[in-house]
């Protein structure tokens, strides 16, 4: 299972945040909004920041489950991990 964070922040901003928080996964800079557009994480190309959405992809990169709207920041990681276990096995 791989975790990847995506935003429009620069690689330098992402690196600083990841080091500060001790993230063990990559953060990607999607400055051209390619991924955000495909995954409808933005409502318009001019949007300054992407919406908070999470997508679960299988080994082929195919979308299997998505969380759009209503994400409770504190509880979301546990919910995602639980669903990952259900989808992909422990």
């Amino acid at each position: 299972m791989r975790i990847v964070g995506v935003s429009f922040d620069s690689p330098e901003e992402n690196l600083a945040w990841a080091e500060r928080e001790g993230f063990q996964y990559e953060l990607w800079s999607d400055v051209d909004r390619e991924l955000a557009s495909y995954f409808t994480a933005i409502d318009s190309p001019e949007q300054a920041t992407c919406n908070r959405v999470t997508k679960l992809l299988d080994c082929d990169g195919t979308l299997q489950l998505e969380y759009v709207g209503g994400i409770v920041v504190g509880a979301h990681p546990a919910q995602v991990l639980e669903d990952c276990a259900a989808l992909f096995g422990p």
Partner: protein
Amino acid sequence: MRAEPLLELSRGESGVVMAHWSPAVGADDPTSWNLYGGDLMRLGEGGHEGSPVGRCGLAGATRELVLEGHADQPGHAYYLLTRFEHDGVETGLGTDSSGGERAHLHPCRHLSACPSGGPLIARGVDWSALHGSEPPETLPVPDFTVTAMDGTPRSMVDLVGHATVLWFYPAAATGG
């Protein structure tokens, strides 16, 4: 010696066909069961759909499944096979007439390093219960180019080979 699980089919009062399986007497405490099924007419064809054991239909500790839309199709015979696991290792499929081990072409997802696409009902996931909606459209992600924290480009290749949690966040230090 480990005994194989027994599979039983029954028809409920409402007409639905149920499959129940349980370890035979003497089974050595299997940790979970995997249920495979397919069209009997295609058994042995090989290739994408045909398989000696069919596609994974359900995996996990559950022992019961409603066979909605499978067993009652006119003109088709549907077969089912249960396999059980011990510590993540599924029992073998025996040998073919030449003595070779039967290949397992479509193992349940959690048994495969990188399973291919297919009906995603592993572990009995109920979409509506999980998410309150239908499954999302399942199209492969098109190629893209983004930049990792160290300046390295990332593309579609980097999403293949692993199940991935793709987490979009508004900006650094916004949490969640």
